[in-house]
C-alpha cells in the first residue's frame, strides 16, 4: 500500500513536523508537486490525519506533570465507563489511556505547582469513581519525546 517514497516522506515529515513543504520535498528527494500529490493521497487514505499544535504548558505556568496509574474495582461492571466519563470532567487531565496489564487506566495530569496538584489530587482525582488503587509517577524530565514511528 505504501511505497518507499511514501515512507521516506513520512519519515522526514515525522522527524520535523513544522518543516516547510519545499524543505520537506528536498529532504525526501521528490519534487514539490509529487510531495503535494503524495500527501494528499495519504490524507485521503486516512493515514495522515493532520498536524496538531502541542501546547507548551510549562510556558503557561503549569510546572507539575504527573502520571497517575489507576487500578479499578472490576467487580463493578461499569467501572471503566464511569471512571473515564468522570475523568473527562477534570480539565487538568491531559491524557486517558486504558491498558491490558497491571494498570487499568493511566491519567496524565498537569498542575500549576505542588500546592495546586495536592488540591487537585485530593478533591478531584481521588474522588473519581471505582478506584481500587492509585499510584503517582512525578515527572522529572522529558528525555525523549517523539511520536515518530520507525518506518
Amino acid at each position, binding site marked *: 500500500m*505504501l511505497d518507499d517514497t511514501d515512507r521516506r516522506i*513520512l519519515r522526514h*515529515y*515525522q522527524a*520535523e*513536523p*513544522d518543516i516547510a513543504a519545499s524543505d520537506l520535498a528536498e529532504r525526501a528527494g521528490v519534487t514539490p508537486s509529487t510531495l503535494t500529490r503524495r500527501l494528499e493521497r495519504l490524507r485521503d*487514505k*486516512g*493515514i*495522515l*490525519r*493532520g*498536524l*496538531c*499544535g*502541542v*501546547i*507548551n*504548558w510549562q*510556558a*503557561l*505556568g*503549569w510546572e507539575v506533570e504527573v*502520571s497517575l496509574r489507576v487500578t479499578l474495582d472490576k467487580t463493578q461492571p461499569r467501572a471503566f465507563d464511569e471512571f473515564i466519563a468522570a475523568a*473527562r470532567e477534570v*480539565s*487538568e*487531565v*491531559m*491524557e*486517558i*489511556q*486504558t*491498558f*491490558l*496489564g*497491571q*494498570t487499568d487506566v*493511566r491519567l496524565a495530569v*498537569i498542575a500549576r505547582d505542588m500546592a495546586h496538584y495536592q488540591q487537585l489530587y485530593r478533591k478531584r482525582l481521588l474522588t473519581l469513581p471505582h478506584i481500587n488503587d492509585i*499510584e*503517582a*509517577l*512525578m*515527572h*522529572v*524530565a*522529558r*528525555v*525523549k*519525546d*517523539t*511520536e*515518530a*514511528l*520507525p*518506518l
Partner: protein
Amino acid sequence: MISLDDTDRALIRALAEDATQTAGALGRALGLSQPACWRRIKRLREANVFRESRLDVDTEALGFGVTVFLGVKLATKGRVSLEDFERAVSAIPEVQIVEHVLGLFDYRLRVVARDIPDFERVLRRRIMTLPGVGNLEANVLLSEERRAGPLDLI
C-alpha cells in the same frame, strides 16, 4: 509569563487541533483581520506557547499495531550513570517517549511495535539489555484519548 485574553485562548485551541491553519482562515473564524491574527500568533509563538507540532498518523495503518507503556526501575544506580541509560534507551527507534520520573519507577517509556512478537524482540534484545535496567512493568495500550487540557483555567 505571557498574558492571554479570550481571543488568544481561542487561537491556542484552534491551533492545537490543526496547526496548519493560516492566519487568514483563523482570523475569519475569530473575527480578526489577517494581520491582527498573524501578530497574535507571532506573539504566542515567541512566548514559546507551542512546542514542536505533532503529526497525527494512523499508526495501525502504518503497520504498528502494538503500543506498550513500560515502567523501568534501574537495578544498579550508582554503577551505571543515568546519562548512559538515557542515551542508550533514546537510541532505540521503537521507543517514542522516555520520561525520567519519581515514584515506583525511574523511567516511563512508550514503545511501539508491529505486533506482540515484534514487541517481544524489542523488549528482549533492546530494552532488557540496556545498562542498569532492573524491574520492568509492561502495560499494553488498549485505548487512548488526548484531551485539550485546562484551557479554561489559563
